[in-house]
């Protein structure tokens, strides 16, 4: 009902200037909670048309002789005021109302922005590319609210950043926004990081002539949008250096590292400067240290980083807690990479192998599978490690020479030890593990095991696999039970009274 009414009002307004007051009434209706959406749509309709007609346009020629205040100019000024007012109101809607309203407001604003870019309010002589940056700034600021999370809005905004000019000007705005904040609160950081995560870094050297389809405010035959890649780089680095100095909670720290690894790192000028930061992160434990590890790996691989005791840090990451982390598969993958070099000392690799073996004593089945393969691969790379399960002299010791508590892998004396843990695993209740652990009794294969396939395995997968095993015959017990008590091997009724 209301929407129809509003639409007729809007169309009447557009028909003749006599109905100018309709605009006022529509704007005033925005205050009301219930009818925000139709109002926004009606306003969008009005201003789209008005901007296209260039009725809103500030006429510089008219402004020159200011004393002549004719009706036309008055109307124009009033219309401009209404336009600005509406824009402010939409912004406020975006900060307060329900998410659907917010999204509507955002899209409307972006649409108006686009039209304004095409039909600038200020009349311009020169043929330069025009983008209403002063309108974009409040929008971006609103997105990076310090009060609440703006995930969905940012997700919508991401669609607009597909336009090159929007992306470019957002990046242009970011340094100014960031540099103003000394220590923003956590919500802001979260919003900011998710914005960074969402918006892409502009590609290099895109500036071809016929790009008016890829820009928001361009029109056919109009001036071309040209972006300055050097500036972009500068802005990006400036933003990052500011962001990294903020104080982060573990959650945002993790998010920061994810953004860093996935988006920023390739574009940084001097990535090696991050080394200390990553090393500090590495000591934090948990997922953060894993992400840091990945960062370090990239630095080592691409930027020839050398840092003392990287392996020591990696070594200390193997703790029983890892089996609960989401990034466990990544850890195994990365450590496999780190240890893929055949030039490492055998003492070091033996320490890793032994530590991993110790972990199997508490690990869930799916991880035991991974670890077993991992150890197998280590032995394949370093044939000297064979002594871990084929001791050259034999004999016996009273205590395992390996020192689990030693932080330095080189001093852990793992090479003196034997993999008794794997021997114990041959008695694991799951037959798949028991057979896998038997590799220490058999000649090693010539090719490494492919770990990548089972890295993401879960207990469900193992269950399914066991279920799928086809067996010809299903054996049954031969003791006929008389009751819950078994004739032998009964344990449950020893500890429980069930009936």
């Amino acid at each position, binding site marked *: 009902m209301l929407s129809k009414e509003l639409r007729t009002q809007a169309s009447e307004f557009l028909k003749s200037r006599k109905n100018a007051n309709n605009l006022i009434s529509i704007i005033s209706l925005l205050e009301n909670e219930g009818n925000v959406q139709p109002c926004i749509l009606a306003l969008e309709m009005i201003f789209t048309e008005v901007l296209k007609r260039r009725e809103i346009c500030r006429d510089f020629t008219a402004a020159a002789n200011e004393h002549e205040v004719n009706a036309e100019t008055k109307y124009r000024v009033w219309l401009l005021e209404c336009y600005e007012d509406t824009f402010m109101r939409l912004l406020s809607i975006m900060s307060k109302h329900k998410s659907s309203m917010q999204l509507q407001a955002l899209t409307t604003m972006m649409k108006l922005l686009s039209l304004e870019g095409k039909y600038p309010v200020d009349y311009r002589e020169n043929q330069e590319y025009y983008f209403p940056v002063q309108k974009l700034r409040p929008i971006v600021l609103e997105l990076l609210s310090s009060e609440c999370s703006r995930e969905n809005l940012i997700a919508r905004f991401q669609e607009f950043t597909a336009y090159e000019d929007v992306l470019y000007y957002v990046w242009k705005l970011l340094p100014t926004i960031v540099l103003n904040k000394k220590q923003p609160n956590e919500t802001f950081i979260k919003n900011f990081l998710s914005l960074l995560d969402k918006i892409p870094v502009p590609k290099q050297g895109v500036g071809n002539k016929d790009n008016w389809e890829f820009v928001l405010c361009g029109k056919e035959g109009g001036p071309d949008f040209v972006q300055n890649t050097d500036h972009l780089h500068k802005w990006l680095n400036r933003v990052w250096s500011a962001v990294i100095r903020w104080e982060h909670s573990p959650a945002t720290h993790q998010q920061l590292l994810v953004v860093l690894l996935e988006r920023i790192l390739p574009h940084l000028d001097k990535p090696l400067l991050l080394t200390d930061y990553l090393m500090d992160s590495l000591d934090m434990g948990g997922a953060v240290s894993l992400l840091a590890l990945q960062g370090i790996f990239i630095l080592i691989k691409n930027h020839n980083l050398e840092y003392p005791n990287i392996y020591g840090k990696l070594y200390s990451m193997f703790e029983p807690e890892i089996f609960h982390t989401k990034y466990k598969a990544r850890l195994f993958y990365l450590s496999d990479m780190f240890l893929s070099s055949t030039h490492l000392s055998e003492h070091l690799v033996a320490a890793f192998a032994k530590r991993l073996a110790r972990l199997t004593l508490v690990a869930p089945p799916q991880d035991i599978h991974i670890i077993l393969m991992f150890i197998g691969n280590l032995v394949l790379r370093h044939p000297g490690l064979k002594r871990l399960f084929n001791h050259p002299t034999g004999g016996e010791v009273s205590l395992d020479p390996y020192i689990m508590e030693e932080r330095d892998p080189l001093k852990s004396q793992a090479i003196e030890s034997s993999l008794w843990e794997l021997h114990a695993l041959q008695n694991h*209740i799951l037959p798949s593990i*028991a057979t896998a652990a038997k590799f220490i009794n058999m000649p090693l294969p010539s090719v490494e095991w492919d770990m990548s396939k089972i890295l993401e395995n879960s207990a469900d997968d193992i*269950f399914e696999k066991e279920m799928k095993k086809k067996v010809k015959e299903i054996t049954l017990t031969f003791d006929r039970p008389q*009751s819950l008590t078994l004739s032998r091997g009964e344990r449950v009724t020893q500890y429980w009274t069930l009936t």
Partner: protein
Amino acid sequence: MGKVKNKAKKKRMSDRVVKPDSQKKKVLNPFEIHVNRQKYSILGRKTKNDKGLPGIARAKAITKRKKTLLQEFRIKDKSNRFLDRRIGEKNSAMTAEDRIMARFTVERMKMHNKKSIFNLADDEILTHHGQTLNEIEKFDDPRSDDEEEEETGKLDSTFVEDAHFGGGMLKRSSSEGHTSRKDLIDQLIAESKIRKAEKQRAREQTIELTEKLDTEWKDLLPVVSASKTSLNNVVDNDDKPDSYDTVMRQLKFEARGKPLDRLKSEDELAREEKERLEKLERERLQRMRGLKEDLVPERKHRSADDLDDGFEVESEEEVMMSYNADGELEMNTNHELEQDEKQDHEQDEERERNSSHSSEESEQFDDNDEEDEDNIDDLSDLKNVYHSDDENTENKGHLIILSEFFLGMVAENVNLETMQSTDRNYCEDRTENKIKIDLLARKEMMERARSELPYTFKVPDTYEELQAVLCVQSPHHQAVILERMMKCNHPSLGEGMKDRLTNLFGFLLQHLQDTAVSTENEEGCNCFAVLDSILPHLYDLSQITPQNTGHCVADILKEKQQDFRAHCNSFPGLDTLVFLKLISHLFPTSDFRHPVVTPAFVFICQMLHQCRVKTTQDIATGLFLVTLILEYTVLSKRFSPAVVNFLCGVLDMGVSKTCAKLVSVVYPVHIAGKARNLLVLSEPSTVSNNETQLMNLDDLQETLPEDDSFKLRALHTAVKLLLEFCCHLENMSASYHIFKPVLTTLKQLEVVKYPSFLQEDIKSVISKVEKMEQQKLQFLVMEKKKPKALRLYEPRVEEVFDGRKRRPMGRERQEHEKLLHKYKREMKGAIREIRRDKSFLAKLKLKQTLQK
């Protein structure tokens, strides 16, 4: 004579000489012989196709075609034809009479042509005096043969004498005058007629009389017979039956047991049962070690000259030589064996004898057979004591003893003497006593239930039907219902019974599930009670079709696992636990890999690893799962990290974290933050008595207020479970490292607060783990491999060498090749024949067209 002989000989000789001559006459034109020249002449090769006679062969082929193909060609496209099948019609050599004779003989032959030479009765009807024997055998006609005078049409002897021979002078003189010959004959005829008539009359009279007599006799018969029997009775009463006779008759008619079903003595039954169990146990052990059954047992000794070719000298059995008291040499090993064999032999003989007897006599005593069958049934009941019910408790006691004996044996087999046998024995004793008491009580209950229920039940077709029958009953009643249901519908009783019973198994599982889920169960009717009582019947059902059982349970397991995936952080309900418990009863949990048990293991481990412990209920459920794993692995002694982790986590909950040090020992167990102090005792325990409390069902079902009794129960159970796992794994080389976290946690516990029995248990666990630390560790060394022998270049001997080498291939492949070869040859031959047929026909057609 000599001459004649010589001639004969000569003739034969000449024959012999001549014959080859006549053949030689056929010597062929060398131009008609085609010789297949051989490149190399090989000794001993049979040359079959070295010469060919193409001309003759072609001629032969053409005549053959004329006989077959040409005939067919002539009647081609003609649907009717006239066949003259008259005998000898085409044979011009036969005269018309011959033909008739021949046809007649054939006709006769047909008449007499018997279908089989042994069939005497059917086609030829034997007669006597024109009557078939069958008719005669009916004896309708009372007239005997004697009465029938021969009615010959012959003349009277006197007349013959007179008329034929009495002529002449001797007699004629005495006669009163000669009557004319004509008169004489007339007289004769008249006489004979009169005589005939008389005879006829007389016979009719006798027949009448006999008939009359018969009818009268029949009337009289009942009276006579009655009097006769009464007379007999009197006689019988008078003289007592001879005792010898009666005994003899008794013996004669006594039911004979068939030799196969000889009643077995207690000892034999026990031995048989033992052997059966031993065999099954051996199989189980094999499966536990994960070996395939068909694996060849490892040879003990390999000589240095062993060539790895599978050849083995049959080593004689090692014989222990010793001297007995008398100084005689005796061979220990063989002795007993021989005796056994002898015994067996004797038994066999006996059996044979009996069987032969019985086969002779079985026909005579058909009535007794039924009784015999009854006997058989009884015996079978006795034989499989397992399948009989609780009625025979003695048997059961017997069995328990057996299985116990058996356990001892197993222990020996596995070489686990180092196990703490004392602990174990104690355990066994206790369980045994418990079982006995339990069984008595159960029997009582069952008796009561038995008396209250009807005797027959139908096997339900749908689950709803079963529900209707079972839902209102108590577990014991349910058991009786099932028992009767299965007795009435034993698979041996009918065709579809097996299917229905397998369905019943599925329904019962569903029933279990429903009782586990439903909340409004009355007292004593929880799912475990139900399982407890219906378990024997579930077992019986499962034995009928192992495959189906496996699939049913596996499906349920899968379903449960799917449910668990939906909320994978919370412990499952009773419905899952009850099925996991069921698995340990139906399937051998010690197998290395088992299609049902292994997934169950995976599932339990997954739950222990993933579920988050929040409440006392969670703790109880976790402990139950751990107990289940213990039960599953009691025999196989396998190791699972999940178990130790969980128990460690439970113990950790008993350590109060307030005491400043706050050791962050994180095991891979999810324990919610709130629950970290869940098992810390609020005050020192006042429980002084040594009565240890067991965990119970309520712990599993609801979250209890955190009272100290539960805490003590849980901790105590955890410690006891740990103790048991320690015992199991203590021989493992890495055992100390497995239990090391337990040690640290146990040492943090405030032991003082606990009652004495718990303290003791904790101490024993600690001492056990510390003992593990003392264990020496053997460095791992790979087994030395026998170096592979160099290949020897000996001549390869082929048993039958037939001139060519054969590629080595499998038997089946060889057969296949042979067939293929044959097929190719036949194919070629067939094509050639067809081609020649075609050309033959073409020639024929050409000829016909030319003629036209």
